[in-house]
């Protein structure tokens, strides 16, 4: 499948707009906590092979939206699908197996597994993960292949020297890198990154950015939550702005900054707007 | 089992410890064997065996070993016109069987109209027994639930805090080594010491562990260790036999709307309900009680409001210790005092708090009465030795149907 980098050039920058080749489609997704609408998305499409940033002020419902579509939370209403396959009622692990993998804002490294073991856990093809495989063997070959793949990924993310250390001994930034590398072991079509830059020192940010653009080059679709606007501007093909659970704007990065609604969402509305 | 040769020849079929007897009804000058009467033998509330009297009126129940048993005659199986000469002597408690011996017990029978009690009476008695058990469980369970609410700890040693209340009451009131106080003073002292033990536990053990930021699972395992140590410490100090307080033992039942009721059981229910109401008032109407609820809602916000969370937690332990001791006192009064009574009750306490919703005081009370009544009422359908099992099965069904409990919120699902 060829990905056209300019596929979104002609798409209008209006909330809920249709994309030429959507991989994720969300319809009427609602989730409220105690009467407050945390997520209320009418319609949203994510274009295949792009980097889509999900931005919005604190409490806009970005992480809740992630939780819902990755199967970690259940919506009150709504449908969403991945590449045409409905995901309603599909549990989190199956969503991952279908090719949509997410990371977490607070990294979830498996602390008392080594970095290499962390990578292996994400492999989906190892027959040794079934009880029968574990008992009767025959998984060495798959294991070796996975090791090879993991080694390449660790190399790519600069974690090779840590491969045999416990993940718990990594620094905060290294854990973020490991989490992304680990997600890639799943061979996902869509990778969802929840604030991958948070708590990462500036030097690492640059390399992490580089990795994320690399994912697009590998044909993956990236959805990520970020609040550093310079980062968003630099790498996204498309920006979706959430506020109070709803999509208030979407479009190419250039169109977002000048959008009054977005500025209002971020800076808040003034009291005497009409007088300004 | 080599001591079988000591057995009475008439009971030749047994080769070990047993309880038996002969049922003879004495009417005027006549002595008639009574056939077909069901006699059951229990130990610690669980059935050991039963036997039906034969044509000669003989019955025999083998028992698993030396010990103390309760023998019960099922009055509903007595033939018409035959009754117990003493109406409430259908249950003989504390029958001691010695190693290798067979113990003979007597049920004096005579002319009587005692047939099976009418259904409403049986139902009423069981409901009453359920309320009594519910009161005992509730008194004990509230503390466990409050501790969980303010600290998140499931304290396995809570059962021993219950036992302590009964054992201390026994020591102060009845034990020859003790001061021989009246039951009221002895009970008050036991509750005070129970509360003191709560304080010691929190200050000496749990607070330091909280300061070390020990995980809750690890703390739960520590509480299992504590439970073990305390239980066997009590066994060493108190001995393994069942004991009764010297007051309020053989009470004659009074008539309560047609249901025979033993006064001490009535007192248990009344005191239980009053104390639980006071706990409720304390939680609802006092500043400290409100602070306790505040801490269980949100410890961080409590701290930010100027509440000294550590003090509130210690107070909760003191209350839990006192209430558990009070529960134990009544458990000892209505059943008997024994070293592992609290641990046996703990499982029903767990059932009650999970049923009501772990961490909610009112849920624990409600759950306790539901469990108490379910346990006693179950004997309408199931054999009485399955009583406790019924309580535990109620718990499991509850977890299947409504895992958050009757009054709990949804967060318990992992």
């Amino acid at each position, binding site marked *: 499948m060829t990905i056209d980098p300019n596929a979104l050039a002609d798409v209008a920058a209006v909330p809920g707009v249709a994309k030429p080749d959507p991989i994720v489609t969300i319809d009427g997704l609602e989730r409220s906590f105690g009467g407050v609408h945390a997520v209320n998305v009418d319609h949203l499409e994510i274009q295949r092979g792009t980097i889509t940033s999900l931005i919005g002020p604190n409490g806009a419902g970005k992480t809740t939206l992630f939780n819902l579509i990755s199967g970690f939370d259940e919506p009150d209403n709504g449908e969403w699908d991945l590449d045409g396959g409905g995901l309603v009622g599909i549990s989190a692990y199956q969503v*991952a197996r279908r090719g949509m993998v*997410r990371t977490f804002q607070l990294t979830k490294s498996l602390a008392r597994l080594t970095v290499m073991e962390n990578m292996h856990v994400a492999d989906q093809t190892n027959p040794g993960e079934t009880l029968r495989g574990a008992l009767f063997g025959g998984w060495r070959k798959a294991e070796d292949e996975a090791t090879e793949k993991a080694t390449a990924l660790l190399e790519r993310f600069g974690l090779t020297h840590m491969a045999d250390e416990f993940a718990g001994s990594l620094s905060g930034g290294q854990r973020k890198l490991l989490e992304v590398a680990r997600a890639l072991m799943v061979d996902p079509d869509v990778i969802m990154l929840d604030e991958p830059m948070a708590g990462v020192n500036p030097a690492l940010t640059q390399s992490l950015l580089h990795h994320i653009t690399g994912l697009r080059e590998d044909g993956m679709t990236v959805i990520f939550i970020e609040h550093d606007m310079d980062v968003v501007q630099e790498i996204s093909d498309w920006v979706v702005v959430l506020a109070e659970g709803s999509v208030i704007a979407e479009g190419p990065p250039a169109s977002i900054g000048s959008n009054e609604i977005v500025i209002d969402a971020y800076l808040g509305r003034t009291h005497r707007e009409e007088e300004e | 089992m080599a001591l079988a040769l000591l057995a009475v020849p008439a009971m030749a079929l047994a080769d070990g410890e047993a309880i038996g007897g002969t049922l003879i009804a004495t009417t005027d000058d006549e002595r008639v064997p009574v056939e077909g009467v069901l006699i059951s033998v229990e130990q610690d509330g669980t059935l050991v065996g039963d036997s039906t009297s034969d044509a000669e009126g003989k019955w025999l129940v083998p028992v698993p070993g030396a010990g103390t048993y309760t023998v019960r005659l099922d009055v509903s199986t007595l033939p018409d016109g035959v009754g117990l000469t003493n109406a409430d002597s259908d249950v003989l408690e504390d029958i001691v069987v010695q190693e290798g011996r067979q113990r003979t017990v007597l049920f004096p029978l005579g002319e009587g109209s005692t047939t099976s009690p009418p259904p409403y009476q049986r139902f009423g008695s069981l409901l009453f027994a359920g309320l009594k058990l519910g009161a005992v469980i509730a008194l004990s369970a509230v503390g466990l639930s409050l501790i969980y609410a303010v600290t998140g700890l499931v304290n396995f040693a809570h059962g021993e805090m219950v036992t302590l209340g009964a054992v201390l009451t026994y020591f102060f009131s009845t034990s020859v080594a003790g001061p021989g106080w009246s039951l009221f003073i002895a009970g008050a002292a036991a509750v005070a010491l129970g509360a003191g033990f709560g304080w010691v536990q929190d200050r000496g053990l749990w607070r330091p562990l909280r300061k070390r930021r020990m995980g809750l699972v690890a703390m739960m395992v520590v509480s299992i260790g504590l439970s073990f140590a305390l239980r066997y410490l009590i066994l060493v100090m108190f001995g393994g036999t069942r004991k009764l307080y010297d007051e309020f033992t053989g009470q004659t039942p009074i008539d309560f709307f047609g249901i025979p009721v033993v006064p001490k059981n009535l007192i248990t229910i009344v005191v239980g309900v009053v104390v639980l109401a006071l706990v409720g008032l304390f939680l609802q109407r006092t500043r400290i009680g409100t602070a306790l609820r505040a801490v269980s809602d949100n410890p961080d916000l409590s701290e930010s409001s100027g509440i000294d969370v550590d003090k509130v937690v210690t107070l909760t332990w003191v209350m839990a210790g006192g209430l558990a001791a009070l529960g134990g006192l009544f458990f000892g009064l209505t059943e008997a005092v024994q070293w592992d009574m609290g641990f046996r009750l703990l499982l029903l306490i767990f059932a009650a708090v999970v049923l009501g919703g772990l961490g909610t005081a009112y849920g624990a009370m409600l759950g306790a009465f539901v469990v108490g009544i379910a346990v006693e009422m179950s004997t309408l359908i199931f054999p009485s030795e399955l009583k406790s099992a019924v309580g535990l099965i109620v*718990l499991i069904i509850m977890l299947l149907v409504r895992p958050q409990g009757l009054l709990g919120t949804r967060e318990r699902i992992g």
Partner: protein
Amino acid sequence: MDFIAVIRDGFLAMIGPVTAAYAVSAVSLNLQFGYTGLLNFGQVAFMMVGAYGTAITVEAGGSLWLGIPVGILTAVLLGLLLGLPTLRLRADYLAITTIALAEALRLIVRSSWAEPLTNGVFGIQGFADAFFDLNPFPGGAVYGVGTWTVTGRSLWMMIVSWTVVLLVVLLIRRLIKSPWGRVMRAIREDEDAARSLGKNVFGYKLQSLMIGGAIGAVSGILLAIEQQNVTPDAYLPRLTFILYVIVILGGAGTILGPVIGALVFQFVFFGFDSLMASAQANIDWVGDILSPAEAGQVKLILVGVGLMLLMIFRPQGMMGDLNESLIDDH
């Protein structure tokens, strides 16, 4: 004071078949607690079900060799039934539920209601003759040096049960060192992370409970055969707690920890018996304050205190590495 005798008594208990059976059960508990993070407080139920499954099969006319797999399968089934409703619950609820279910099951087994099947409180005896018929050593003969001896019957039992320990350890080692075991440890570390990587957490936990249950049943069967006796009151919650002490003592989440734990525990437990007996015989004041029965109870107090101290000061156990210690706060 005869310290040689104390060490001898402790040693003979340590190498005995009961220790082996405890080791097997501890290994299975370690799979659940140490490697999967499940707080199964109903371990004793699996042992009971295994033992009863075997004994009842023999009573019903089956052979012992049919009874053993029946016992194991019953335990696997119990794991399934126990797991379906409880594995979605939080850790403390799982603990409460499993202990409740185990105790309820014991009460049912000992009730007159189940008597036709289980023989109630009296239990079932003498079902393992087929096993002792295979004993190549004369049952009455004595093997060993001086007073350090065991009977032929014990020797046969020891050989078989320690072989079972070896097999079970090898099995667990194979499982844990496999990708399957890696997923288990991942679940122990963070369920959500495992889920996000496509692992069916519930399914794995259920497998852990069922395999652990099967191994627990093997342990129960070994104990039952050794004693030629199953009675419900041998399966009190106390036994589960002792197994936890063994696992934590040896080091939860280590392959050999549970076996080392069982050896050390039994050595100390029975050595202490012998020590107390010796002290009572030789030191007046000890005999004055403690009867022999009480001395046995003091030992259990020490078990409780020991568990507390272990958890507080050395949660990683004897074999564990502090960095890998299971019980910490993240």
